[in-house]
């Protein structure tokens, strides 16, 4: 059996979320045992509060985003939370569009989201409304651009081979 | 004061200074080697036979290293500080009698086994080291760096605090010996070394002495992981070497005084070795303890360190002093 699908799916959970948030819940999926819900940005915080308070999802795993340049809205923002007691996991997704991508912050519900959201801001340029300390975390503060966007060119240098050897710069390693 | 006396003193001073400098150099190698052995590795062994030229290489390198100095330093004090440290360290050794009994007869001159045999004895050491604090403090101050300053503050506070316990732990010895003169103290240990009746005082002295020299587990001023390199963070080249020198010479001096005061100085059982060799042997054993402790123990936290000094060592030294005095007086009364 495939041991990696270890979250215990709780079908009724999606049902309950649907009952509660109605049209706020746009989509739900269960791929390889991973439960995801796509909700409208407006209900993210309410959903989070509900999940934490009533369903016992006490542990935030990570927050991140995925850039789909072809889609509209372009960015999918993902938070994944876990209930340590129930051993259940759920992925909360929402979407946001260019030119000013922003979603509500979940730091008020799970403080652990703070750095993850900062990182997402840093690498994707997605603003988290209500985040207390939204500044760059991994890149230098004066960095321009958001590296993990698909249209960001990851400039580097080509590997050097013998045809690019520097002429006339052969160092005189053997002194004297 | 005759000319002869002056010349002899100068010659003795030169010998002691040279000896201490060599001792410092080889103490660094000794430390590296001993520590290496405790850690199942050979230590420096490629520079000269058994690595014996390693100190020379280190010294040569440091001597010809250009000195980079921090911006915004206090020029005069920055240069003065290492000099103070080293001078204080070197001067301390003047009182220590290396051997005896009696003087050395050489070419018709009677020469004592010491640079000077003053009647204030240990007080000379305490006075000179208390001056050595300035070297460390000014180094931190003049460097214009937060880490240096913190290291200097810690170090000076630590040295001042532990000087008390250091001095007081020696008082029982004075009571027993009835003199501050180190030669008299050693002579009083002809039959019984003072470590036998005064074992607690010996340990108090050892702990305070280790703290006084800023060595592990009390090496907070130079705690690499906290303060980079403490007060000498901003020193390089030869000036840095001077601080190193001062620290190691101080180790030698603390060990020497412990030898003289508690371990019977040049007296050894069965008289199988001449006096200086006994002295050297005891000093080396104590230095081994220094290195051994450093290899083993975690560093203490600063507040605990001060608490240990003020709340444990000082009262214990005082108690030891009083107990010794009472017992001594009682024994005298009986006799």
């Amino acid at each position: 059996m495939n041991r990696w699908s270890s979250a215990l799916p709780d079908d009724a959970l999606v049902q309950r979320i649907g009952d509660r948030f109605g049209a706020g819940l746009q989509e739900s999926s269960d791929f390889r045992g991973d439960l995801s819900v796509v909700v409208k940005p407006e209900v993210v915080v309410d959903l989070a509060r509900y999940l934490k308070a009533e369903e016992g999802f006490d542990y935030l795993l990570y927050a991140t985003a995925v850039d789909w340049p072809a889609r509209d809205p372009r960015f999918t923002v993902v938070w994944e939370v876990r209930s340590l007691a129930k051993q259940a996991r759920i992925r909360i997704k929402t979407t946001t569009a260019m030119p000013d991508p922003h979603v509500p912050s979940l730091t008020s519900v799970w403080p652990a989201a703070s750095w993850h959201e900062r990182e997402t801001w840093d690498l994707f340029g997605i603003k988290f409304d209500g985040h207390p300390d939204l500044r760059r975390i991994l890149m230098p503060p004066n960095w321009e651009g958001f590296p993990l966007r698909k249209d960001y060119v990851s400039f580097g240098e080509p590997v050097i081979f013998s045809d690019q050897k520097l002429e006339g710069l052969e160092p005189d390693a053997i002194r004297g | 004061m005759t000319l002869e006396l002056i010349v002899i003193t100068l010659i003795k001073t030169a010998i002691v200074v040279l000896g201490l400098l060599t001792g410092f150099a080889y103490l660094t190698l000794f430390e590296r080697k001993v520590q290496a052995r405790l850690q199942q590795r050979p230590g420096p062994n490629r520079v000269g036979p058994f690595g014996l030229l390693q100190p020379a290489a280190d010294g040569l390198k440091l001597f010809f290293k250009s000195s980079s100095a921090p911006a915004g330093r206090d020029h005069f004090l920055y240069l003065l500080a290492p000099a103070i440290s080293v001078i204080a360290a070197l001067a301390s050794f003047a009182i220590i009698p290396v051997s005896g009994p009696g003087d050395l007869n050489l070419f018709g001159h009677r020469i004592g086994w010491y640079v000077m045999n003053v009647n204030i004895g240990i007080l000379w050491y305490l006075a000179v080291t208390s001056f050595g604090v300035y070297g460390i403090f000014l180094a931190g101050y003049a460097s214009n760096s937060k880490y240096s300053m913190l290291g200097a503050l810690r170090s000076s506070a630590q040295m001042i605090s532990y000087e008390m316990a250091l001095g007081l732990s020696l008082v029982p010895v004075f009571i027993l010996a009835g003199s501050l003169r180190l030669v008299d103290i050693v002579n009083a240990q002809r039959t019984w070394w003072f470590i036998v009746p005064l074992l607690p005082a010996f340990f108090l002295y050892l702990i305070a002495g280790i703290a006084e020299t800023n060595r592990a587990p009390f090496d907070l001023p130079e705690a690499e992981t906290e303060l980079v390199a403490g007060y000498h963070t901003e020193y390089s080249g030869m000036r840095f070497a001077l601080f190193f020198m001062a620290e190691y010479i101080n180790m030698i001096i603390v060990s020497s005084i412990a030898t003289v005061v508690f371990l019977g100085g040049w007296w050894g059982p069965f008289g199988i070795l001449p006096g200086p060799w006994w002295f050297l042997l005891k000093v080396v054993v104590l230095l081994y303890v220094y290195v051994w402790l450093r290899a083993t123990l975690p560093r203490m936290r600063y507040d605990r360190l001060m608490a240990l000094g003020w709340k444990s060592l000082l009262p214990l030294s005082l108690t030891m002093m009083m107990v010794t005095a009472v017992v001594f007086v009682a024994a005298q009364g009986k006799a």
Partner: protein
Amino acid sequence: MVKNDVRTQESFGPEHEPEAEWMELNMGPHHPSTHGVLRVRLKLDGEIVRDADADIGYLHTGFEKSFEDKTYTQGITFSDRMDYLAPPINNVGFVGAVEKLIGVEVPPRAQAIRVIMMELARVASHELWLGTTGLDLGVYSGFFYAWRDRDLALDLNEAYSGVRMMTSFTRVGGVAWDLPDGWLEQLQRFIDVMPSRIDDFESMLTNNPIWRQRTEGVGVISGEDAIEAGVTGPVLRASGVNYDVRKAFPYCGYEQYDFEVPVGKNGDCYDRYRVRVAEMRQSLRILQQAVDSLPGGPWLTSDRKVALPPRSELSKSMEAVIHQFRLVSEGFKGPVGDVYAFVESPRGELGFYLVSDGTNKPYRMKVRPPSFCNLQSLRKLVEGVLVADVIAIMGSLDFILGDCDR
């Protein structure tokens, strides 16, 4: 000591200085105790830390961007270099996500080899932690003993994979190589010798009053706070929360092994030390069981869509050569979807969130690094402690900047 007197030791010294006069001390990024290149800006009131702002990113390497350019197989080499103290665990986590996405069966022998390598890595990582944290707190020899013992584990890595650290030993659907001859005996010697080496450490540290002074009651975090802060791994377990991925969501056949999850009580640095030492012993237990019950059979899945053919077939079968060409040049494609797979690294839960758009490369690979999440709690931990304690606390968190910054 008069305990309930109001004027205890803490009440000495001047009144709280106003915030404007707090001294700002910059630790790092080049500081001996930051285990790499972390920068912590401390606000000091005397020697008391009032606030700490951890500035990370000095080792930001762009892994997540690089993953997007590489095929799944090539990505394995990248996963090694994130948490460079436990590369095998990263390898397993990475291929775990891919395997989950594609749905590949892994043969039992491969599972067991993975477990062995992971537990070896755990022991090696904790050894290194002991050595460096000990060195931070001044236990000079401990560092060398730790390295002596860690070298034994790295020798095993080397004998198996050819390199000491960056093994890259997993492949999707199994592992790259079978165990070499004599390797199990070497492992057995390792398992036999390690307990006494750990005992040596414990006799140096566990009851040492100075060590206890430095660690006991320092950097306390309660279980609830730890969960709130997103902490995992030994740090969480030291706070009394019994959560270990290996027990809670067994993978690679961990459910077959009999081991305990060490849990602390107070959540201070001392408990973290105890938990890690106990974990080393438990890892040795798992290793022993894995050696005893190592299954035979293939070490790589026979699914030719994802796994290279065995080398012996290459010279015989043209089909195998074609597979080889296709797999190396194109790799394999995954279905559209997103999965999250996670393993227990020495630092906590290491997760890989993999988004696939159906090509042969990850569309997006987000790593949930345990160091990142644990380091987030630093601010909470250091508030009100002395500067010297910051060293102990940072050491006890056992963060790896490569893991944290990616």
